[in-house]
Each structure stands twice: as C-alpha cells, then as structure tokens.
C-alpha cells in the first residue's frame, strides 16, 4: 500500500468533520467560554462557588452513582443476551436483533412514560412482586432510584448488547472446545477465556452506556422528579428555570469533562490491552 492511501481515506470523514465542527464543537466552545468569562472577565469563580456547596457534590455523586448502577444492570442483563445472540443462527438471530434494535426507534419520552405506568403502585412490577409474595403491601417504585435505574437500563440496553455481540461473534467457538480439552472447567473458562476475549466489547459497551447515563435528562425528569438532582437536570434547571447561564454552563462543562475523562480512560484501557496481546 502506498503512503498516501490513509490520507485519502481520511478525506471521506470530511463531511462529518465539517458538520460536527459547526453543530457541536463551536457551540461547546461557546458554552465552555461562558462558564469562564463573566461580566468581570476571566474567572473560575462559578466553579469554586459550585464545588464549595455540599449539595452540588451530592448532585455529582447522584449522577455518577445512577450511571454506574445503570451500567451494571445493563452489563448483567446485556452480556448473556449478547452471548445468546452470538450463539443463535438464521431466523432466531434475526428476530433477536430486531427485538434489540427496534425499541431504539421508540422515543425516549414514550418509553419513560411507559415506565411511569409500569412502576406505579398498581403497576406490573408491584403486582408481580405482590403476587409472588416478595412484597406484603404495594409500594411505589416510581420516583425511587431503583425505578430510575430500571427504566434507564431498559432504554440503554441495546448500547451494551451490540458492542459486546460484535466482539463475541468474532471469537472462534473452537477456543472454548480447546480450553475444555485442556481440562479447564466452565467457570475457569469463563474468567480466563471468555471474559478476556470479550473485554474490548464489554469496555466499549460500558463506556457508551455510562456516558449516556451520566447525561440523561428526560428519564430522571419523568421517573424520579426534581427531588433527585443530577448534573443534566441541574443544568436544565439553571438554563430554563433560573435563567442562570453561567451556572448552567459550569455544570454542563463539569459534566462534559467527567464524560470525556471516562471515555478516555476506557480508550486507554482498551489500547493497553491491545499492546499486551
């Protein structure tokens, strides 16, 4: 291959680059700029003010905790699903893929409202738990963290399943057989073979779901309400309710850097793995 080929191939990404610069990079720059430039010029006062308030630390903690729990639920449900998807063939696999991808076409608001119904005191989940005797009396799942995590995990699940599936389907199935013939029991094979081989897919799935979950706004608004503030809901509040652009820009920037830090950490983890192998 000639040395110039990669440059030419990179040109194909030009339209996307131009688009992203106009609709994403420039507005984000403006946003970050607003958080640093006040009426009295350049200052980090908004950040100091924000971070010196204990309530705001609680908000950051809420954001990360909810995102982490959502990611965990997605991983626990998504990994076996991805495994089943990679083992299935033909028609069954097509049906499964449709079942995973089709819900993405339903708007987040619709899904969140649907979860409101599911999580009600007389909703499906409560009725089920009552019928099976887990609960003695009906309780409200809506407006609880459990309800929020359940709803969010449902909505983000495809973003966990698909990256893991894309890695799993490339793994040679005879590796499992080879490990078994070497005397490795199933649990050992899972931790020493399946998991390391699927690691890159798991890492990307987790980083996508985590990023989405840290920045979700509609889902917490509808499923848990104002009592439970996260960085995105606080940002929206600052812009829409309080008309405090500087506060809004500050929280948005903090959220942005938290997310970037996580994505970069993930990329670094993946690259370190690739260098090792």
């Amino acid at each position: 291959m000639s040395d110039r080929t990669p440059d030419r191939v990179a040109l194909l990404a030009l339209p996307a680059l131009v688009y992203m610069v106009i609709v994403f990079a420039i507005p984000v720059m403006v946003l970050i700029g607003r958080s640093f430039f006040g009426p009295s010029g350049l200052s980090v006062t908004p950040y100091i003010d924000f971070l010196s308030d204990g309530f705001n630390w609680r908000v950051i903690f809420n954001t990360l905790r909810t995102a982490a729990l959502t990611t965990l639920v997605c991983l626990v449900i998504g990994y076996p699903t991805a495994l089943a998807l990679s083992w299935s063939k033909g028609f069954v696999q097509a049906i499964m893929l449709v079942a995973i991808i089709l819900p993405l076409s339903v708007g987040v608001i619709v899904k969140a409202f649907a979860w409101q119904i599911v999580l009600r005191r007389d909703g499906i989940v409560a009725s089920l738990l009552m019928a099976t005797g887990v609960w003695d009396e009906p309780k409200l799942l809506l407006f609880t963290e459990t309800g929020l995590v359940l709803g969010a995990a449902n909505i983000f699940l495809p973003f966990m399943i698909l990256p893991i599936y894309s890695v799993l389907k490339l793994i040679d199935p005879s590796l499992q057989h080879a490990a078994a013939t070497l005397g490795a029991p199933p649990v050992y094979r899972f931790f020493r073979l399946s998991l390391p081989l699927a690691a890159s897919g798991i890492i990307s799935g987790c980083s996508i779901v985590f990023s989405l979950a840290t920045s979700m706004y509609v889902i917490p608004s509808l499923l848990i309400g104002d009592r439970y503030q996260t960085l995105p809901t606080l940002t929206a509040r600052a812009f829409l309710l309080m008309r405090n652009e500087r506060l809004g820009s500050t929280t948005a920037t903090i959220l942005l850097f938290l997310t970037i830090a996580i994505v970069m950490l993930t990329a670094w983890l993946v690259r370190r793995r690739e260098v090792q192998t």
Partner: protein
Amino acid sequence: MQNSVLEVAGAEKAFGSTTVLSGVDLAVENGEFISLLGPSGCGKTTLLRIVAGLLSADRGTVKLSGADITGLPTHMRGVGVVFQNYALFPHLTVAQNVAFGLKAQQISAGDIRATVAKYLDLVQLTSMADRPIRGLSGGQQQRVAVARALAVSPKLLLLDEPFSALDRKLRELMQIELKRILREVGITTVLVTHDQEEALVMSDRIAVMNKGAIEQFAAPGLIYQKPASRFVLDFVGHSTRIAGTTAKTTDGLLAIETAFGTLHAQSGYIPGSPVTVAIRPERISMSMAQETPPSVNVLSARLTDIIFQGSKYHLLFENQGDSHLLVEAGRIPEGMAVGANVHLHWSLEDTLVFPGAQE
C-alpha cells in the same frame, strides 16, 4: 484384555434424518498411532468429537483405559485435541497458551514453569516462549497446539486434520517431526484425515471410514495390498480394474473371463458371478519380448500414453479400444514407445477380486 486405551462400542449418531455414524466399534492399543481415514462426510470428525466429549452419541459407549467416559464432560476426560485451525488463545503468549491447561489444575507455579519449559523444548519453541500468537507461522502454531495439548498429560491425543492448513513441503516435514515428538512422549494417538498419504506415512493402523462405518481397520500395508472392499481399494491409492465373470475353480485357482482373456485369482466365487479384478498399478510388470512371460496372469495391450509424474511414470494401455489399463513404473523400459504392443503380467497374490461389475 485391558490393553486398549480407547474403546468405542456401537457409536451411533444422526443429525436430523442424516445418519452420520451407524454403529462404529473401535479399539486402540496403548501407545498406538491410528488414523481415521475417509472422505468428508464419512463421520470421522463426528467420531473424534464424540471421543473428546464435544458431541454426544445417540447410542454407544466410549471407554478410556477401561473406564466408561460416555457421559463425562470434556474437561474431565483427559483427552487432548489438536484442532484443525489449532484454536490457540489469541490473547496469550506461546508459553501462556501451553500453561493454560496446567493453571486450571491445582499445580504450583514452579511446576507449571518447569512443565511449560519441558514441552516448549520438545517442540523446539523455547526461544519463542514470550511471543504473541499473532505472527507465528503455520508450522509454529501447530507446534504450540501440540505442546499445549501434551502439557496436561492426556491419556489420549486426537489430531483433527492438523496438517491441512500447511503447504505440501512443510506438511511432509511436520508429519515426520510430529511423529518424532509423539514417539518420544509415547502417547496413544488418533489422527483424523482425508489425506491417504498422511495416514499411510504416520499410522500403525488405519481405519478407513465410509458412510458412517469403518470398512477396514488394519496396518497401512494391509490396507494397501489387501483392501477389504471396493471402497478401500478406490480411496487408498490407484488401481487398474478389469471387469469379468467368474468361471470354474481348478486346483484353488479361480478363472475369470475378461475382455483381455482369462485371468486367475485365489479367492472362491460361485461360477458366473460378475466381478472386478483389480491390480495395484506398480505391481504390474511389462515385457516387450515375443514370448509370453511365465505368469498366471498375462495380457497383451497397446501403450497409448506415457504420463511423467516426476519420480515415476504412469503408462496407459488399451486393448481393442477397450478399457484403459494403468501401469506405474519407475522408468520406461528400453525401446518402449507409444503404440508398442506390450505383455502385462502380475502375480497371483497381487490379483484382487471384488464382487460386482466395474462402476
């Protein structure tokens, strides 16, 4: 007799309505190297997978050193496998691949290191120990796969078409190399292959399989010289075949009437049955002399073609436009050219007779 390492009895397997194995019995002695030889779809790979526990048979039992392992999961069997694509673990180094099975057992780190070093030395890959799998050549990958399988000291080693990914030169080299390694370890081995040369070169005994059954299980020489069926005759090596009809047997000599005249064979057939006479092409002698050679089976035919094959020649003969006869020779006798009339003759022992007309 408790000498058999592997004993398969009445193994049957069907996928849907397709029968893949129809009652296979197989016994492999301690330290023996046997081959399952047959065309694709003959059930040889299915049999291997059943022995390894990667597939369960519909009926039948598998015994290893006398113990019934029919229902045992793969990881508890102690049957090593070298897979066709080697199935090396891509996220581990050469040494880590070899250590994988050892680490799954309760073995001290020092013992694992020593065992890995021993088997890497055996396959002459000590210098590659810390290399990643990616970038190894086909031959090196195969040696890693062999070292990995042997490191856990299996009672039985199965080789699933292990040479099919290698080019011809390397294949021949690796066959000899692998034979040396396995002899050194002294392990009982079953090779699955569709390559007759591979089976003939490596095996103590060959089980020729066809349509889910073993047609003949014997030493390579016997398989070649005394094939038990038309299928074995056709699958292993070349043969010259002449259709005929049996006549009377006199003094233990069976006369067979053919288009080339009367031929003779040893075995007893009822007079009047259609048979095929077969001779291995290199067992046929050629003579240009006027007088008929003193042999029980002689026919004269015209040389129509000489095909040079490097180390040998294939000569094609015909008689009155009738069927082509193949003769294999190391060199062309002096004065013999296309168009010459030649006496072809062969001994009684080399005359094979199979029931049924040709093709």
